[in-house]
């Protein structure tokens, strides 16, 4: 299909339909409202299910139920709404239910504001749920990448029998960009969902039950070790990142994701015009964090400058990934403030001055 001009939120909605989403359950919140608005109109045309639930808590439990019946399910919200959904997400991980969660991030804590933010990093990567849990999570940078990841995510969720979260800041939800909605994406071989509760116990000869409750601690430990094996598999197979301007083995390497990476790109170009070469690691997967990109850094790279629209959350993962090999610097704005290119340029120059 030829390219069309899409707004981030509606592009994600259409991508979900194209990715085979059977049902959507959600509750409105700015800045992601165009997503459910689009689905409320279009899901019916495709014979799919759309429900506006009475709350975020209701929505995530509807996701749990529909996923348990074997459907491909989506919910979307923004930061405080995702916080409300954490209990349900933990239950999904515990019950090994697939599902896709789109988080269009805004400023926090609490209700915060409606402007773009990346301050959910810890909520996403450490999760707000209880137990030894992980959610496979991606943070794309532009609408084409977002669309492709949303389409792919339903198969990924089924493959791992685990929730997948796609986190974009409010800017990506609201901005417009040309996209090809039909670019082919990677598919996964997904075994039939013989675990689903479909009301066919008589036909199957056994009753499928979906629970996250295991009262025998040895059984619960065994269950957790199985989950852990899945997370290890994600770490092995799903690390995604992009390297930008790294051929010159630059001394300073930026680390940024989402909209922040877009601004960082413009800073890289501005610095290049002044004869200063800096590179960038752009994480696309947040869990698993792209350790491989850091392991492959040249010995000439001395400093990693972490850039966030939050105040030092990914910074911790950069420290872990560097493992003491680099000087770690940080620049961030928060609360919905989007930094300008020259703020990053100034920070890089300040680091260079100190290094002399």
């Amino acid at each position, binding site marked *: 299909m030829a*390219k*069309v*001009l*899409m*707004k981030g939120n509606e592009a994600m909605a259409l991508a979900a339909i194209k990715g085979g989403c059977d049902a959507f359950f959600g509750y409105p919140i*700015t*800045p992601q409202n*165009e997503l459910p608005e689009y689905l409320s109109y279009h899901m019916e045309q495709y014979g799919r299910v759309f429900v506006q639930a009475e709350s975020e808590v209701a929505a995530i439990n509807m996701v749990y139920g529909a996923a348990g019946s074997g459907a491909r399910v989506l919910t979307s919200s923004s930061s405080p709404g995702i916080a409300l959904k954490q209990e349900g997400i933990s239950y999904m991980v515990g019950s090994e239910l697939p599902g896709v969660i789109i988080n269009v991030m805004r400023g926090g804590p609490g209700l915060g*504001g*409606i*402007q773009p933010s990346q301050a959910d990093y810890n909520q996403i990567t450490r999760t707000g749920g209880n137990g030894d849990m992980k959610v496979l999570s991606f943070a794309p940078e532009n609408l084409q990448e977002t669309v492709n990841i949303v389409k792919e995510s339903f198969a990924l969720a089924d493959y791992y029998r685990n929730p997948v979260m796609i986190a974009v800041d*409010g*800017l990506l939800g*609201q*901005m*417009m*960009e*040309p996209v090809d909605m039909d670019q082919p994406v990677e598919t996964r071989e997904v075994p039939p969902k013989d675990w689903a509760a479909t009301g066919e116990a008589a036909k199957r000869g056994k009753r499928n039950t979906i629970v996250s409750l295991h009262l025998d601690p040895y059984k619960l430990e065994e269950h957790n070790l199985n989950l852990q094996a899945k997370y290890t598999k994600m770490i092995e197979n799903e690390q995604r990142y992009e390297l930008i301007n790294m051929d010159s083995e630059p001394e300073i390497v930026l680390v940024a994701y989402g909209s922040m990476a*877009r*601004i960082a*790109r*413009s800073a890289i170009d501005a610095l290049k015009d002044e004869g200063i070469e800096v590179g960038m690691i752009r994480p696309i997967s947040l869990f698993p964090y792209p350790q491989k990109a850091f392991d492959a850094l040249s010995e000439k790279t001395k400093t990693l400058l972490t850039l966030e629209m939050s105040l030092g959350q990914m910074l911790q993962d950069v420290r872990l990934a560097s493992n003491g090999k680099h000087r770690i610097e940080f620049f961030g704005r928060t609360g*919905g403030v*989007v930094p300008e*290119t020259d703020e990053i340029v100034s920070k890089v120059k300040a680091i260079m001055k100190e290094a002399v």
Partner: protein
Amino acid sequence: MKRITVLSGHYGSGKSEIAVNLAINEKVDMLVDLDIVNPYFRSRSVRDLLESHQVRLVESTIENASGSDLPYVSGTALKPFLDPSIRAIYDLAGTKAGAKLMMQYTEHINPDSIDFLLVINIYRMETSDAAKIIALIDELEGSAQLRINGLINNSNLMKETTQEHIEEGEKVLKTVSEKTGIPIAFTFIEEHVKTNHIFAGRNRTLVRYLAKHWL
């Protein structure tokens, strides 16, 4: 252009960018942001730029609360309808609900002094063909209680726009014109598209004042 221009268009049509472009180039006195639907990228983010061109921006938010998503229309928005010395552009949301805001001014509207223009980008799925555009025209005219008397061809794929994209848009809009009798009033051409081709209506270069350069 008449003394008052009301611009409407589906979200993503480029209406707000065009409102700013026209406000600056046509040297109007006031740009009224009546778009209470879209929470980001509104004309109000260019207040300083407009002020430097002596254009007063009337915002659709409560003063000093730009982060609020509370729908709000300033009382000042009525002024151009009462004071014939003021030239103004209205940026009106292009949805059934958004366009209804126009109805509050119905009793003050003199059709001779007002243009109601519809901004179209055929690369938006909601306005990709003549039938969809005509349905939108009917819907907006009903909600706003005002006849659309001009179309603006803003068919683009942002930085990826070529002359052919604009021509494709013109083809679709000409079909709309034939069926509705509404002429193409303007064609907007992205700054980077270098062409000597003369498109329908008044040809204008589109300067992107609202989008950040890294977007």
